[in-house]
């Protein structure tokens, strides 16, 4: 690799040519603070926190975007640099709603940390006029509080670049600049897909999910209600981060213990419904292949992806699997089969789901998601909300024992747990579909070609005398590439898995927020995915169709996959939507 020599704070170092000063400094063991910068997503040099002195430069330069050149002399912590960074923070604070004590990000706010690191002593140094904004609560899943927005534009960049949605941007200009939707529409009026990636990258408390924890506590304290909780696969791979554990720590056992101590009547696992999804979806796939149905078949687990498809590819809705998402299947089975089995009135069951996802809050309110005549799922909370509930009741999460999910809806397979990462649904489906088609046992259940964190993966498998072309995409801008191929008729895929968030659910919009400097240096989604693959490989049952609880469910209640009853309870329909309202 071609390198250049630079001097950072007097120390000579060779760094790759084309590096930014920020990257070069990192090689010299110096972490320059950043605020707006997100590698490859938001490289705009706007906040000016990362300024450094470069010998000979007319002014300070933004290290996040400034390329090094041979012989460059860089100073990262001169009095001028430190004073400038502090002043930048003081200016930001002068137009920031400083209700830090009641802020959802208190304690993991990037602005707060910078203020402490850079020794801001008086938050009111530059106080003057402060812009006041109404909260945008128009969407089902989140709140925008521009009074806390620092205009770093990470949300804008991730919405447009990573997700290809682009429903937010800067309105007005100068001091009045604010991030909002075109023509000041509410987010809920736009073609926002509810993925929550904007929340995941927000450094402050300007963006947050609609908090439903009070409703959960109210249900738990209502003696009339039978409160059942389900937890999505990806939650166990990330919840520990909220309690200081390394990224990618599997905390399934402690999570179950915590939920039980919070007072849930049953602690079940969405993984059960993931196995069920595979049964239905694999059946649907085989049916479409054998009977000339619409191909490629595309997965429907990710509600952000579904909403995206409805808005942007309404002409291709026939490609979507009619399967409800695992969350909804779980709720539907709980309120029909399980209620019947246990003699419970579905009306008295409160189905709470813990999800890595904000779009799940939107999904529970969709039409045709009420198999028992009541909503399949009543409350969907994020991984972050669960962590806050655990904190609120004073559970010492780290010292909790490891406990098991309840039976029978807590039983699942290795195929189910990898639903939480990109490629996981595809792999799980292949494990079942291939064995169904060939009627032979797979030599190995691993389909490594569809693993990994890259945005698009493709593979061809020779199964029962035919070539099956599959593709996997995560992140909606990657989905767009595949969808455009299908729309143009160029695609020859049979089966596609799409997840709305890059990397899949492990990196969902409801997962613990990691600050910019972590996101820029660590592949969070790969670490969390590894936790799931480790669980899978450690399990004895790794194929959905081998889950005994699933077999029992079909035997006792549903009949067989794709049956009339299964359709009534486990399948749904989609609506054509438009792009925004104009």
């Amino acid at each position, binding site marked *: 690799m071609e390198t250049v020599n630079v001097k950072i704070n007097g120390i000579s170092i060779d760094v790759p040519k084309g590096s930014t000063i920020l990257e070069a400094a990192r090689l010299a063991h110096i972490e320059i603070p950043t605020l707006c910068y997100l590698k490859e997503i938001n490289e*705009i*040099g*706007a*906040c*000016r926190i990362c*300024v450094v002195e470069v010998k000979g430069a007319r*002014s*300070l330069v*933004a290290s996040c*975007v*400034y*390329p090094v050149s041979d012989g460059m002399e860089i100073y990262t912590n001169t009095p*001028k640099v430190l*004073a*400038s960074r502090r*002043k*930048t923070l003081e*200016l*930001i604070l*002068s*137009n920031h709603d400083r209700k830090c004590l009641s802020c959802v990000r208190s304690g993991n706010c990037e602005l707060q940390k910078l203020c402490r690191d850079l020794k801001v002593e008086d938050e009111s140094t*530059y106080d*003057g*006029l402060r812009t006041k904004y109404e909260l945008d609560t128009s969407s089902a899943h989140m709140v925008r509080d521009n009074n806390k927005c*620092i*205009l770093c534009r990470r949300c804008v960049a991730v919405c447009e670049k990573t997700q290809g949605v682009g429903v937010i*941007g*800067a309105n*007005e*200009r*100068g*001091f*009045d*600049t604010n991030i909002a939707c075109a023509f000041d529409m509410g987010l809920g009026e736009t073609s926002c897909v509810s993925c929550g990636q904007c929340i995941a990258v927000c450094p402050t408390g300007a963006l947050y999910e609609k908090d439903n924890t009070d409703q959960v506590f109210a249900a738990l304290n209502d003696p009339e209600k039978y409160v059942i909780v389900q937890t999505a696969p990806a939650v166990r791979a990330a919840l520990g981060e909220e309690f200081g554990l390394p990224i990618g720590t599997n905390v399934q056992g402690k999570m179950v213990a915590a939920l039980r101590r919070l007072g849930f009547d049953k602690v079940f696992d969405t993984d059960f419904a993931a196995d069920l999804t595979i049964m239905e979806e694999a059946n649907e796939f085989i049916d479409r292949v054998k009977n000339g149905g619409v191909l490629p078949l595309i997965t429907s687990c990710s509600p952000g992806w579904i909403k995206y498809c409805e808005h942007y590819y309404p002409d291709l809705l026939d490609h979507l699997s009619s399967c409800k998402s695992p969350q909804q299947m779980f709720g539907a089975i709980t309120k029909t089969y399980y209620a019947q089995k246990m003699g419970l009135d579905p009306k008295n069951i409160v189905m709470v789901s813990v999800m890595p996802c904000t779009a799940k809050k939107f999904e529970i309110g969709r039409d045709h998601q009420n198999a028992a005549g009541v909503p399949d799922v009543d409350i969907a909370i994020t991984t972050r909300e669960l962590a806050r509930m655990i904190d609120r009741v004073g559970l010492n999460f780290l010292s909790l024992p490891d406990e098991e999910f309840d039976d029978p809806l807590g039983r699942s397979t290795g195929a189910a747990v990898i639903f939480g990462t990109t490629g996981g649904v595809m792999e799980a489906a292949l494990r079942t579909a291939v064995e169904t088609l060939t009627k032979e046992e797979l030599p190995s259940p691993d389909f490594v070609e569809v693993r990994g964190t890259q945005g698009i993966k493709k593979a061809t498998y020779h199964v029962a005398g035919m070539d099956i072309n599959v593709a996997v995409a995560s992140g909606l801008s990657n989905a767009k590439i595949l969808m455009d191929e299908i729309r143009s008729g160029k695609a020859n895929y049979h089966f596609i898995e799409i997840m709305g968030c890059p990397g899949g659910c492990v990196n969902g919009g409801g997962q613990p927020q990691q600050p910019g400097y972590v996101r820029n240096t660590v592949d969070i989604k790969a670490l969390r995915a590894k936790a799931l693959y480790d669980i899978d490989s450690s399990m004895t049952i790794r194929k959905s169709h081998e889950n005994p609880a699933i077999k029992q469910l079909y035997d006792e209640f549903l009949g067989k996959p794709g049956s009339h009853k299964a359709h009534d309870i486990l399948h749904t329909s989609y609506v054509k939507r438009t792009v925004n309202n104009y």
Partner: protein
Amino acid sequence: MYRSHVLVCGGTGCTSSGTPKILECLNEEINKAGLKNEVAVVQTGCHGLCALGPIVIVYPEATFYSMVKPEDVPEIVNEHLLKGRIVQRLVYDETKTEEGTVTSINETAFYKKQHRVALRNCGVINPENIDEYIATGGYEALGRVLTEYTPDQVIQMITDSGLRGRGGGGFPTGLKWKLARANEADQKYVCCNADEGDPGAFMDRSILEGDPHVVLEAMAIAGYAIGANQGYIYVRAEYPIAVKRLSIAIEQAREYGLLGKNIFGTGFDFDIELRLGAGAFVCGEETALMTSIEGNRGEPRPRPPFPAQKGLFGKPTLLNNVETYANIPQIILNGPEWFASMGTEKSKGTKVFALGGKINNTGLVEIPMGTTLREVVEEIGGGIPNGKKFKAAQTGGPSGGCIPAEHFDIPIDYDNLISIGSMMGSGGLIVMDEDNCMVDIAKFFLEFTVDESCGKCTPCRIGTKRLHEMLDKITQGQGTLEDIDKLEELCYYIKENSLCGLGQSAPNPVLSTIKYFRDEYVSHVVDKKCPAGVCKALLSYVIDPELCKGCTLCARICPNNAISGKVKEAHSIDQSKCVKCGACIEKCRFGAISKR
């Protein structure tokens, strides 16, 4: 052939004060008089002396009629055009002789020291007729370049001429072209920055309105030099006349094969498209301009990469300002030595300035670099009205600074202006007299930058707002000496930390007024007085009972009933009601009211 040509100024100033109506009357009266085949009426671009508009010049005598009204037209036609008798009452005073004849306009104080290179054709040709441009040597430079010179030779000529960017920064134009040429790419672009946005500046507008082809020709030359075949002119939508004439010019040039495929049969292709800006000042910043052309919100992006490396649509791009381009064909035709013979050691050629503020001859002037500020103000500008004293001149608009009287004799060039804390800028020159408060001036410019900040980077978005608030506090009489220090400190911070030139230069008006007029700031915060009598919060209007005759005029004119008093008795002003509009001072016949 016509025996007489009547040139009517069609610049924005004259147009808004009546040119269209005058043209209508002229054509009507000429028809009526049966002179249709003898007299040609030509609508030209700006003549520069906007204070005297609308301007009508009759050739061959070159009679310069000023402040012409439509009702004057029959007299001009019947007396001058029909009978050959000059209409003395409309002739510009300075061109009158005792014998009743007229002298050349070029002998007047306003024009004598001017040297028109960029404005060569403005006010001379009909900008909507390509033949007139060609008749004055237009497109000859492009022809020569395409048939006689290699691209490197063209760039060498520009380099040798010493031309520097006229948009503000003064970057050597030849070097800019060389850098753009050096970057290999499948596609390159040539852009013209016609997003002139400084308050009071209209140099580029006048060139576009008066001589649009010169810009097209220069862009084609630039395209040949750097290896680009597509040009974009980014022009403000608020310049409707310029937009219209550019559109006409592009159409005509395409028709003549001077734009489009295979120009002059040389195999060189070049075409130009217009892009209209929505009036954001920041879009004059090169990266914001390109971002806007790309269809995005006009916000600057970090440099490097510079436009020459990665500009419009990510391709190497050359971006020059209108006035810079307007010099190019002349440099090619007359040679770089000719151009370099004008100006100072490091600033060659001429510079166009828009004179405004407290000056008699407001308008557009083009002077050789090195002309002193005194010459511009006192001679060309005709001095300051009402015998007031020169206090300062502001150059460079919101990015520039104030030049105080102590630097009145400084030769104007890029480096001199920077050395005294101002800058050339695009060429706005606003003259201030003793009645201008320098704190108020700084506040005015800051108000502009606060409005025009794009809001992308923190120092500019919030910092300029806080600067403005501090200045406002000082003008309200609520400032302290510490506030002046805090103000300066914030200024230096904003200069050092802002993303683009707008923010980096926004504090200049504050810093230069503090530098030269610190005592005025101190008066505001310590004495709670505005020495120039501008800041309303620090003023009171009082009636001297000795001088007041009790005529009641002031009481009747006061819009807020703040003045009371009986007839023929001394009046007094209720300070709590006074809105400090100054109407009473103007009306008092006895000089009994004063500001304190």
